């Protein structure tokens, strides 16, 4: 997989269970001899329509603990269809997976994944990654907007020289720079083995909020031309909606941080 000879996907989210995955997963698994039998559905699974390997998370019927399994695309109990008509991340092929008496050998069970706490370790990593996505997306939108502002002529001069346009550009640059510096420090914490769930959650929540704001400023700066896909920023606006919500919504990541700083859980 490191060489992209095999493509993978990560199947956690379900049609009826997103934020509540930790305690409400409906995809089940049960042991039968040397195999496990999986039943359930997964939704929004990126790459699943063509992935060779799908990591599927399921709740064990007897223990109620979440376990992880490697399910190959040729498994007779595995089927997938593409989710159509998305407005965001349209290049990503998200799959709706159906598992029907999907039989997986014990050797393909993730041996170190014995509860949702282990799943959460992965989410900590991915949320930090998504925060970086947000920084890059915002940076790209800012650069597109700046380039446009320097080329677009109104009233006989580039709009980059107008006060309100510079205000938008500097707001964008402030967001980009601030989130970049935040992520720099998060990277240091991660390198030192000190990054916690709440560290990653704060980064994910904050950077995606700022990204969403920044791409909106970029679209605004481009005016009507900002809704043309040829000018790119409209695509950034649409895609920012997805990165704002996935990998833990802003709300869920907020509650993770809230619990950490107050000691009080406000999840439900």
């Amino acid at each position, binding site marked *: 997989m490191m060489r992209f000879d095999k493509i993978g996907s990560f199947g956690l989210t379900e049609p009826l269970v997103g934020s509540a995955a930790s305690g409400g997963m409906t995809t089940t698994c049960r042991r039968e001899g040397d195999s496990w039998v999986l039943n359930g559905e997964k939704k929004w699974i990126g790459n699943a329509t063509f992935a060779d390997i799908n990591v599927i998370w399921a709740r064990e019927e007897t223990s109620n603990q979440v376990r992880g399994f490697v399910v190959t695309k040729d498994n007779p109990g595995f089927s997938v269809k593409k989710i159509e008509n998305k407005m965001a991340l349209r290049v990503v092929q998200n799959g709706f997976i159906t598992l029907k008496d999907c039989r997986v050998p014990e050797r393909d069970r993730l041996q170190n994944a014995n509860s949702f706490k282990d799943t959460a370790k992965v989410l900590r990593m991915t949320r930090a990654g998504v925060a970086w996505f947000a920084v890059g997306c*915002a940076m790209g939108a800012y650069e597109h907007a700046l380039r446009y502002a*320097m080329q677009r002529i109104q009233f006989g001069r580039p709009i980059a020289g107008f006060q309100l346009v510079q205000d938008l550009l500097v707001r964008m640059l402030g967001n980009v720079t601030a989130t970049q510096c935040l992520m720099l420090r998060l990277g240091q914490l991660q390198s030192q083995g000190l990054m916690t769930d709440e560290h990653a959650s704060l980064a994910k929540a904050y950077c995606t909020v700022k990204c969403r704001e920044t791409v909106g400023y970029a679209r605004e700066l481009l005016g009507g031309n900002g809704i043309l896909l040829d000018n790119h920023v409209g695509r950034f606006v649409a895609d920012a909606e997805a990165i704002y919500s996935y990998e833990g919504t802003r709300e869920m990541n907020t509650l993770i941080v809230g619990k950490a700083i107050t000691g009080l859980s406000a999840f439900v």
Partner: protein
Amino acid sequence: MSQQTSLARKLDYSVPPPDGDFYRIANLLDDSESAIVKRVQDFMELEIAPIIDDYWARDKFPFEIIPKFAALGIGGIGYRGYGSAGGSMLLQRLHRHGVSTRRFVNRHVLGRAYRPCGRFDLSLRR
């Protein structure tokens, strides 16, 4: 002569190149890390940027880029060992041209291995 050229000459306006790395965060990387980031950035600008709008509009995935992604040697973003490239700065560079293609790599990396100790690492000098 284009309107822009005419105006630029009239105003003696030299255009600074757009660069979102205002505080020079990339300067914190060492030479080998910078080389990887540059390789990725060049790839995104040469291979992805020219095609991504079209694929996005058509709700299609550019499968032809998979071997090209493989040639970048970044399949192990966020992991140590296995010859991985490490480095979270890469994630930022992959997203400067939009989020979609990076999401493909992200989903692939998540499915690649369950490594709860996987770490994103800016590889700062210690």
